[in-house]
């Protein structure tokens, strides 16, 4: 699947047409190691040198290539966003597994799609680019990936329900920008905050209804 989605070019302030696709390969993972990781590490070192430890990205040494064996597992779905011939964002979903069950009391026990990993290219993140004295390049990548997760949930008959564990510094994105409900801290996953969409919240996010 390849489809055109608009993202924002922060330099012009205008929408541009990127490509959202699901045929993610190990070459894309290698690209994240070669293109993203050095910038993330450089920004992390700058932040550490300034004593801004609370801003150091909590995913600074993730390695997507470790997920290569998971590409062949049908339970997993991967999505990427590409623009100007560069990977701008990557996401891994689980359509079945230990976290694919709702915990919000009003939908407890029902199936959801689990957002296992999301990463946006470092040059698109304000916090990292500020550390390097630069401006972030593109916007709305994260929203497009979460949009893909909700649409996939509908395709899987999960009614748009998604769930995820948020890193502490990203909680506000999922609550404010995606309209997800924080449910509680999960001791089974490093006490990270568990958030969910109900079908109504999912539709609201997709349509932008207030």
């Amino acid at each position: 699947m390849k489809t055109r989605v608009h993202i924002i070019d922060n330099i012009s302030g205008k929408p541009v047409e990127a490509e959202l696709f699901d045929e993610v390969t190990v070459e894309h993972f290698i690209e994240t190691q070669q293109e993203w990781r050095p910038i993330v590490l450089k920004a992390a070192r700058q932040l550490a040198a300034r004593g801004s430890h609370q801003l150091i990205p909590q995913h600074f040494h993730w390695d997507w290539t470790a997920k290569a064996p998971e590409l062949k597992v049908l339970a997993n779905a991967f999505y990427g966003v590409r623009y100007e011939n560069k990977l701008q964002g990557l996401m891994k979903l689980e359509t079945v597994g230990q976290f694919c069950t709702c915990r919000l009391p009003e939908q407890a026990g029902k199936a959801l799609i689990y957002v296992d990993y999301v990463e946006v290219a470092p040059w698109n993140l304000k916090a990292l680019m500020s550390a390097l004295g630069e401006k972030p390049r593109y916007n709305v990548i994260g929203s497009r990936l979460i949009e893909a997760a909700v649409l996939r949930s509908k395709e899987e008959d999960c009614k748009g329900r998604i769930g995820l564990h948020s890193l502490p510094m990203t909680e506000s994105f999922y609550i404010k920008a995606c309209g997800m409900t924080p449910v509680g801290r999960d001791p089974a996953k490093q006490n990270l905050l568990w958030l969910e969409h109900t079908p109504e919240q999912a539709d609201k996010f997709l349509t932008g209804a207030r």
Partner: protein
Amino acid sequence: MKFNSDPEWLKRQAALEDNCFVSVGGLVSAVEDLEEQTQRATASRTAFVSLLNLTRREHKLTWEQFSQKLDVDLAELIEIENDETYKPTPRTVTKIAHFLHVPPEKLFVLSGLARAHDRQFQEAALRFAARSQPVKALSSEEHEALKEYVKFLCER
């Protein structure tokens, strides 16, 4: 999948996402994990170089002839052989994989481009590297080791 194309939605999401950090995934693991990964990567890399070397000798090729057969730069093949910190390009590794008829993703791990997730894979790499010695003629044991290892890479 039908994505939202409303410019107002895009503008609103841009404003909401602007100052946010976007990622999902576990918290970073300890620094010690990174060091352990480095050691395992060295062992895999040795197996990769042995695999290249034995394959070239199996086909009775010089490095120059081998680079032509593979359609890769001779300079790069020499870097791979001599510099254990050198990371080959994905294109080169894919060409080698096609020549050997093994899945490229297996060689991405061996060459250090991708991270291994699998203890069995790493142990097999170590055993293969240990069985291959740098002598001129391919001994029957090395021939067997090479044959078995290529079979292993194809089967998993």
